């Protein structure tokens, strides 16, 4: 059964230096509060997995938490580059960052296969792309029925999954609504999971086929109101698109980034 913890305790207990950590939320419900707590606790040498690294990983990479990034699209959506990610890849600041990159389809399939307990995902993918040349995890298999050549990638089975969701009930069942992304898959694929929620309620108010993670499939739950800001939580608050645009200026420069980090992460406690 899921254990209710403070965000500080959940991160401290379940994320270790060197862990493989997948923080998901496909452009919705991005677990920023958890990312900031990981920065505050100065976790190091993490292998970070995320389809769209977004600002949360830009911040964590800039703060020195990551040694490796597995991803499929690393930009500031609709704005431009992730400057901290680029600085780490291109200049090795604050440390060299190893990258392993996929397409979205491959990563989505790899999470799905991880949730399904399989060692591999099979997809019709990477045809004609150079990505298999720079990612040795991409292989090709032959269909035993048709002879068709199909791509295969290893499933993703992280040590820890971190997601943000709208709410949990008091037994620890979690509701995710709206753009559900790959939240269910990453939690089921991981050895341990931390779910931050907007609120804990008596009744989830879930419809009959809603995306609900049962308490026994979740490791820890932490209440973190507005824990997805500047991303959004459908039904709670909107995406702060202006901040996404402002981030470009903040992150472009190491000093302004570090000042931002000090004011907005280190000198703020967990929610």
């Amino acid at each position, binding site marked *: 059964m899921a254990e209710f913890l403070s965000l500080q305790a959940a991160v401290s207990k379940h994320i270790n230096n060197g862990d493989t950590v997948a923080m998901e939320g496909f452009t919705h419900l991005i677990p920023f509060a958890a990312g900031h707590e990981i920065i505050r606790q100065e976790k190091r040498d993490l292998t970070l997995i995320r389809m769209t690294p977004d600002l949360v990983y830009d911040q964590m990479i800039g703060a020195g938490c990551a040694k490796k990034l597995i991803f*499929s699209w690393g930009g500031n959506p609709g704005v431009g580059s992730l400057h901290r990610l680029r600085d780490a890849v291109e200049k090795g600041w604050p440390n060299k960052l190893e990258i392993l990159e996929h*397409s979205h389809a491959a990563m989505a*399939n790899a999470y799905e296969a991880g949730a399904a307990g399989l060692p591999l995902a099979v*997809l019709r993918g990477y*045809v*004609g*792309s150079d990505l298999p040349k720079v990612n040795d995890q991409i292989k090709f298999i032959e269909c035993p029925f048709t002879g068709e050549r199909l791509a295969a990638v290893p499933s993703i089975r992280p040590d820890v999954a971190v997601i943000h969701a709208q709410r949990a009930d008091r037994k620890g069942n979690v509701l995710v609504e709206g753009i559900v*992304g790959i939240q269910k898959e990453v939690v089921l694929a991981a050895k341990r999971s931390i779910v931050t929620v907007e609120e804990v309620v008596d009744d989830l108010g879930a419809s009959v086929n809603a995306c609900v993670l049962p308490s026994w499939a979740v490791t820890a739950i932490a209440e973190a109101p507005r824990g997805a800001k500047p991303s959004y939580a*459908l039904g709670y608050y909107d995406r702060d698109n*202006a901040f996404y645009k402002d981030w470009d200026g903040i992150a472009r420069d190491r000093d302004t980034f570090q000042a931002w980090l000090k004011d907005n992460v280190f000198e703020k406690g967990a929610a």
Partner: protein
Amino acid sequence: MSLEFTASEMMSVTAARALTNDMTCFVGIGLPSEAANLARLTHAPGVTLIYESGTLQTKPDVLPLSIGDGELCESALTTVSVPEMFRYWLQGGHISVGFLGTAQIDRFANLNTTLIGDYREPQVRLPGGGGAPEIATNAKEVFITVKHSKRTFVKDVDFVTTVGFGRDGKARDNVPNIGRGPTVVITDLCILKPDPETKELVVTSLHPNVTREDVIEATGWDIRFADQLETTPAPTARELEVLRDLKARTNAHHSGQQ
């Protein structure tokens, strides 16, 4: 009386016109999203727009900044998980058109959104593939819209993130279950289409007031022009009005919040 319009508006309007009412379009963020929604708000109200965030048949009132803005979900017929989107809807063969942008494009319509320079020591690191590599092969055809410049239109892309017709124009030959690939590229200067034989991109239509020299100047290879070179029809007053309204609504929406 002739209307005033920018090259960028010309590009969006032309890209929008490529879509028809009966298409199911997998929409990339940025220029493709602007064009697709303009089509929906003008001549193709029935066009089905799908974003990789899982939103099926969405009708946003403002343009999303990311492919997962709340607007997309709230106005969608339904929202599915991302694995389902890529497995059932894209790979399952339900997408008639993938509409993509790019950072680099070469003469065989290969797209590079990965990096400039060498992979291990990049000059410029770009965002990466995202949905494009499989959109380009699993959608029945692909439309591309991108601003025309020598930096963007290169003879050979540094990295084939997303295949057009490969380094030799033959990458789709004899590959089972693959879409037709790029059928049109719309820029702020012209329309290009692949040569039916060689698959090399050829200019088929120049936008109003654009010369051959403008295109040659902005293209990184020895660009060819179709024998029957057309002039792209200018935007109509209604197209411009709808586009400008859409962009104004979008700008107001995205800066209004902090």
